Every structure is written in structure tokens, then in C-alpha cells.
């Protein structure tokens, strides 16, 4: 039955009808992993024994007639910067290559309470710094649509695994686009929630004011169901907000008649490729036919977002990564050292990859004495302007449609010569992190056989609006049903 090909909601129905067992789904997924991992290489760690045990438990409970959580028995993969107790969590870095957390992240506790079998931990750009997963300190993950192309980043392993059928659902994290961009490149759906919607407790911090954990799945329904499980107040993350959680599944089916769809010219400027611009135009037509009202809006400070991000994120990272000093966990240099400072310097030099070092350097400089006002403070002021842009725009529209990326997935190695060229991949996604608003990427077409991702942005704590608009588009098109030939 190739159960690995199904969506979570399709599997739910089969479970309820008692046509399949959870162990069969997990088996199907691991068989698929055996078949395609050599080509895709999504996983850092696999947890077959634990996953099968969890699936068996679900089957037993169901046989006893017990009521089960909605996503019970649905296999899920977890990005390897999210803490899983007793299971290696590497952040794709040599400095944490053998680190085993003593506790579960808040979201992992939610997954376990939801009885989802955890398939394993997926590859990422080291410490979530990157847009292609090429910065992984461990190995390269390929795009299942074309193994000579990148899957995107930093949640490349999670996106590739969902895309290739190596898991049904996945968790990723998004600081500047790291869920949405790989979802776009891999032709799947990925959502970054509002900042504070989902607990960051147990997420290895990159940029604390920008990071969010979010769902990846084959379609909008799957992401809505997973978001429902993740959106739970957690007092252990003091930036988590105790705000009412709507029924996303119900809300997303409300259609788009009368919904005001915003189009911002700043997201369709030069730098966006022609095929992507055409995909946006085609989508606008679909929305018109579905009864949405198209509204032109302007977000004038968009072009400064990338610069603001590449000060704020590295600055916060330089502070967050100061803890990797070889004292309490992770790599410690084997070299002879005269004192602790030398211990830290050698340990970090040996353990961190180039991009991580680069960002720590930028961040350290931007925060250093004499430069704080010129760089970090300035960037924070620009952040206010960007937030204001969205506040104004959302007075005139309910959601904003943009491309997810300027073009489709690029060839491995084609952007690694110049860091700045790689940073430009983030221009459409970065504003949502700076403003703290939610964003979803969903399939909107193809260019030369590679998926094109479209993005919908919504107001803070109103994930149901982008979900609604994405769901309506999906139901009117068939892009989300296409899978790579792997």
C-alpha cells in the first residue's frame, strides 16, 4: 500500500477504519529510508527501536478501544537542533557531535504525549545558520527532486525527508526562513508560527528573538494538525505567549470569499526570477476566481530587512554560542593548554565550521564597544520600521502573498563562494522573523521540473488566516500532490 506516500490525515482515516496498523506505517517509512537514504541523506540519527515501540503502544491502545490523540501513530522526524532526551542532538556541528541531551524539548514532550513515533533526527546547516544545508558539519543532504541541487536550509533534512517519503511529518526551526525556504525548494508545506506561539524550550538557540519551531508536511492540512499540537503555552520559555489557540483545522476550511489578499510590489521587484513572478500572477488569478479581494499594499522598508537581519541574528548568535567552550559538554580540545582561555579558543576553533565562525565574528564586532550604536541599535530601529510596515499593511488586507524564494533550488556548490550571495536567498522570508508574524510556504508551480514555493504572511497570532488562504489554493490546484520520481 506504500503507506509512506500518504498524508497524516489520510493515515488517520485508515487508522479509524482499522484498515492499517501504526507499526505498518512505521515499517513502510523505514523501508523507504533504506531505499532512498543513500541518495538523499536526510538523517543524522535513526531511532527505529523506539519508533516501533511507540507504534506498538498505539496499536495496543487502539485495539483496546481507548481514545487516542489525533496524530497518534503518525511518524515524525525532528530537526537535530531540537533536544531529545537520551538521543544524540548534534546541531550538525562537530562541537556537539556526541552530545546527548538530558531532557526533551517542550515540543518533543508534546509529540510524546500525542503518541507520535519519532523516526529520527534530521540534518541541518550547522546551528541553523544557512540556507542550503551545505553548512552542515556532518554531511550533505540532497534535494529529492534533483540530487545535484540543495534541499534548502537550514531545515533541509526535515524538508527532504517529508518530500522523499522518509517521514510523514517533520519539525523544523525558522530564524530567517529556515522552515519556509526548504519547504519551498522541496515542494512541500512549511509554516513558521508567530514568535511566542510555540515553545523554544529545548530548541538550541541561534537568535533568541527570531527563532521559532514549526511544522513541515505534505499538505496544508497536515501542517495545521501538527501546529495544533505544538501551539501550547510553556512557562519554561519566558518568551512563549499564553494566547488562545483556535481550531486551525476548522478555521482553514472557511474559504477565501471576501478575504483581502495583499500584494506588495517590494516582493516582486528585480531579483525575483521570471518563472516565480509568473507563478505569483497565476496564483493571484486562482484567488480571484475563488472570490478573494486583491489589495495592493506597500512595505517600503523591505529592502533593509536583510541588512538588519545580518546584524541582529549574528549578534544574538555570538552570545548564544558563547556557551560552547568545552567545559560541560561537547567537544573539548585534546591539545595541551596553558589556561582556560586557550581551552576555549582551541575547542571552538576545532569544533565550529566556517559560516558559524563568520557569524560569531560579525556579531561580536557589531556588539563590541564603540560599535553597538552604529550596528546593533540601528538594526533594531530598522526592525521597528519593518514591524510598522506590516501593522499598516494588515489594516488593509488579511494576508500577504509573496514568493518564498527568488528562484528554485540551486545547484550544490553554486553559492558557497560568496557568503553574501547565499544571504540573498532569504530576502522574501526574513521580514516575517523580524516582525514576529507567521508565514507559510506552499507549492505554487514548477520551473524546469523544480518546485516553486509561494508564501502567505499573516498578522501575529492569526495563523488561521494564512492557513485558510493556503488551503483554498491547494484544494483548487494539484501541485501539492506531485512527488519526486525517486
Amino acid at each position, binding site marked *: 500500500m506504500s503507506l509512506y506516500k500518504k498524508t497524516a490525515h489520510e493515515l488517520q482515516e485508515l487508522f479509524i477504519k482499522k484498515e492499517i496498523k501504526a507499526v505498518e506505517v512505521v515499517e513502510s517509512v523505514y523501508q523507504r529510508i533504506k531505499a532512498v537514504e543513500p541518495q538523499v541523506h536526510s538523517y543524522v540519527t535513526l531511532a527505529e527501536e523506539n519508533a516501533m515501540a511507540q507504534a506498538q503502544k498505539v496499536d495496543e491502545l487502539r485495539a483496546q478501544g481507548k481514545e487516542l490523540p489525533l496524530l497518534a501513530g503518525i511518524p515524525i522526524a525532528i530537526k537535530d537542533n531540537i533536544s531529545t532526551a537520551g538521543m544524540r542532538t548534534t546541531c550538525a556541528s562537530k562541537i556537539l557531535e556526541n552530545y546527548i541531551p538530558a531532557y526533551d524539548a517542550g515540543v518533543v514532550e508534546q509529540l510524546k504525549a500525542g503518541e507520535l513515533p519519532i523516526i529520527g533526527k534530521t540534518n541541518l546547516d550547522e546551528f541553523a545558520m544557512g540556507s542550503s544545508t551545505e553548512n552542515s558539519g556532518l554531511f550533505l543532504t540532497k534535494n529529492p527532486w534533483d540530487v545535484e541541487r540543495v534541499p534548502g536550509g537550514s531545515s533541509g533534512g526535515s524538508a527532504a525527508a517529508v518530500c522523499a517519503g522518509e517521514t510523514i511529518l517533520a519539525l523544523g526551526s525558522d530564524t530567517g526562513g529556515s522552515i519556509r525556504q526548504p519547504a519551498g525548494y522541496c515542494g512541500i508545506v512549511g509554516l513558521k508560527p508567530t514568535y511566542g506561539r510555540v515553545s523554544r524550550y529545548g530548541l538550541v538557540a541561534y537568535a533568541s528573538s527570531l527563532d521559532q519551531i514549526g511544522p513541515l508536511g505534505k499538505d496544508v492540512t497536515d501542517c495545521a494538525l501538527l501546529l495544533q499540537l505544538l501551539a501550547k503555552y510553556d512557562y519554561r520559555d519566558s518568551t512563549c505567549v499564553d494566547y488562545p489557540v483556535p481550531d486551525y483545522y476548522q478555521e482553514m476550511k472557511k474559504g477565501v470569499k471576501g478575504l483581502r489578499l495583499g500584494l506588495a510590489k517590494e516582493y516582486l521587484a528585480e531579483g525575483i526570477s521570471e518563472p516565480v513572478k509568473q507563478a505569483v500572477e497565476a496564483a493571484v488569478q486562482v484567488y480571484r476566481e475563488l472570490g478573494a479581494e486583491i489589495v495592493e499594499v506597500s512595505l517600503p522598508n523591505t529592502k533593509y530587512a536583510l541588512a538588519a537581519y545580518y546584524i541582529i541574528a549574528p549578534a544574538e548568535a555570538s552570545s548564544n554560542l558563547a556557551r560552547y567552550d568545552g567545559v*560541560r559538554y561537547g567537544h573539548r580540545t585534546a591539545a595541551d593548554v596553558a589556561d582556560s582561555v586557550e*581551552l576555549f579558543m582551541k575547542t571552538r576553533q576545532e569544533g565550529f565550521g566556517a559560516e558559524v565562525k*563568520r557569524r560569531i565574528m560579525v556579531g561580536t564586532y557589531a556588539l563590541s564597544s564603540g560599535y553597538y550604536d552604529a550596528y546593533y541599535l540601528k538594526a533594531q530601529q530598522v526592525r521597528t520600521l519593518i514591524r510598522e510596515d506590516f501593522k499598516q499593511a494588515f489594516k488593509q488586507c488579511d494576508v500577504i502573498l509573496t514568493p518564498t524564494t527568488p528562484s528554485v533550488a540551486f545547484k550544490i556548490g553554486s553559492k558557497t563562494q560568496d557568503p553574501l550571495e547565499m544571504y540573498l536567498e532569504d530576502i522574501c522570508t526574513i521580514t516575517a522573523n523580524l516582525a514576529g508574524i507567521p508565514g507559510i510556504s506552499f507549492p505554487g508551480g514548477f520551473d524546469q521540473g523544480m518546485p516553486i514555493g509561494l508564501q502567505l504572511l499573516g498578522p501575529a497570532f492569526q495563523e488561521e488566516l494564512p492557513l485558510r488562504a493556503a488551503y483554498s489554493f491547494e484544494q483548487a490546484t494539484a501541485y501539492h500532490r506531485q512527488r519526486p520520481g525517486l
Partner: protein
Amino acid sequence: MSLSKAEVEHVARLARLELSETEKEEFTGQLNEILHFVEQLNQLDTKAVEPTAHAIPVANVFRQDEVKPSLDPELALTNAPDRVDNFFKVPKVLEED
């Protein structure tokens, strides 16, 4: 604003990174490129703008000052590169008197 190699070495020391000579060369160039790129923010007049540290309003989260269980010492030491009893062992920090 252009970074000299000496400034790069200074920042590396602040960041506790022991860069190789090749890295110092490469990073000086790349860092200057990045810093030049972000300088475009100076085009904006932000004199009257409040900085945003957090996208959503944050308030201190308090709890009662009650003793609650915390991480078991054995668990906390699971990944210790070097330990003595319940301590992480490191090279000396303080100078000899």
C-alpha cells in the same frame, strides 16, 4: 568602515576563536563585504525610532520562590569531557599567587 587584520584578530580573541592565518585573511575580506552591505541601514533616518528588541511585548515571568526539583547531577554530568565527583574538571583559571 573597513576592518584591518589587527581588528579581526582582536574580535577573534573577544569571540574566543583561534583563527588560522588563512582564516584571518579570508575573514577580513568577507567580514568587510558583510559590514559594507549592512551599512546601507545608514540611509534611513531612525532618530525618532524606538529600537525593537522583541517583536512581541515581553514581560518578566515570575514564579514563587519555592524549591523545586532540578536536573539530577549525574544527568547534568553525562556529557562532561572531564569530571571529578560532581564537578566539571577544567585547566586552571586563576593565576598562582
